[in-house]
């Protein structure tokens, strides 16, 4: 059973979410990965205004394939979020409230998520073909020169995610893996 949530998020929509819950997201969000984060951080450090207003926005860590003719976007699954960890607390400070990616986050990010009541979702890593079918539109919002790493504004419809770190800071990676550790395979 999945919970349906409309984007953009706000605290009231996500405060009740718990790690492990499945959510279908619909609405707009932004893609950004390594190079875009580096640029955003540089802008913040220099006191410049960001090219997109991050207030209550969600960032999807993804660098899609180019769209073939007749398609909105190419394959578009999540990239490893941990590479964005050093930039994330500053973006959360600037209003970012949701993130979608794969893989664990460092303690500073978990703390910042907790402090801000934000949420970190996971999309199935490697399921880029499947996920691209849930994207209804895509346009460049900033840094076109970065190619696949540009910031895109995309509209998603019932985009399937799982809550990895909830607003209370509970992290499914830290809680669920332990449950299955040391179980022997029955098959052999």
């Amino acid at each position, binding site marked *: 059973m999945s919970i349906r949530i409309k984007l953009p998020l706000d605290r009231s929509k996500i405060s009740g979410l718990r790690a492990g819950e499945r959510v279908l997201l619909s609405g707009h969000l932004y893609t950004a990965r390594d190079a875009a984060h580096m640029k955003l951080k540089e802008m913040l450090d220099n006191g410049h205004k960001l090219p997109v207003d991050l207030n209550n926005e969600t960032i999807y860590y993804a*660098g899609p394939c180019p*769209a073939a003719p007749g398609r909105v976007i190419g394959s578009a*699954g999540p990239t490893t979020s*941990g590479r964005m960890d050093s930039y994330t607390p500053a973006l959360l400070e600037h209003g970012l409230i949701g993130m979608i990616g794969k*893989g664990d986050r460092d303690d500073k990010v978990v703390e910042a998520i907790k402090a801000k009541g934000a949420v970190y979702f996971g999309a199935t*890593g490697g399921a*880029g073909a499947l996920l*691209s079918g849930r994207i209804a539109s895509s346009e460049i919002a900033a840094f076109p020169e*970065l190619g696949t790493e540009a910031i895109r504004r995309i509209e998603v419809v019932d985009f399937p995610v799982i809550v990895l770190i909830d607003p209370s800071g509970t992290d499914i990676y830290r809680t669920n893996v332990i*449950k299955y550790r040391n179980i022997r395979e029955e098959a052999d």
Partner: protein
Amino acid sequence: MTRVIECRLVTELVASLCIEANIILPADIADVISSAEYREVSPEGKAVLADLKLNMAVARKERIPICQDTGMAVVFVKIGQEVQISGGALTDAITAGVSKGYTEGYMRASIVEDPLLRNNTGDNTPPVIHIEIVPGNTFRITVAPKGFGSENMSALKMLKPSEGVEGVIDFVVDAVITAGANPCPPIILGIGIGGTMEKAALIAKQALLREAGTHNKLKHIAELEDIILDKVNRSGIGPGGLGGRVTALAVNIDVYPTHIAGLPVAVNISCHATRHATGSL
């Protein structure tokens, strides 16, 4: 008998292999992903495996890449010593094929020209090319696009011979646990033991090409593959790193003679999207 092969044909072959490899997973990999769903006990893990199965079907039907990280193209060439390449340089022909395949296949350009300056080359070139000269006049190319979610989690260590097989097991299992969800588990492990530093890394990568579910011909290495697979699958990481029993689908080890003072071990972690396509001219 000497045979002449035109560069133009090499370029065409490489281009089509890049596209095929990225759209359709090899049958052995598809099979182990499919059968893993029945072995998995965690509901979260089962859901990930179901997604991956569906994803393979969507990619095949719509002719789009399985994963948006269409990788750095690793190209293995086996060229017979009686083959002559005409019409240009072999490596240029391969590079042109990668450019053509990635551009015409609407695949992602993920390569930066300088590792520190980081400017994207725009057509996913250059590839990493490994050429091996073999007897005869055959010409065989394998394109293995390698995603970096998993490549980044790979590791190499020069163990002391006294650390032995236990040292190898601990090193590999640690690497998998450190990798966690990042390499998009379920993973395939390519492990190279022996040789020199670069030889261990190369045979680890080549081991990823071996059919999933098969074993090394050496009995003690085949047993080691089973031991590592079992240990890794008791790590709890599971599909998507969300907890479960199926962390790895296969462990492929290759070995090479080494120095009296050394025990190099390389583990090349690969995701479920362990892609490769082979063709001959």
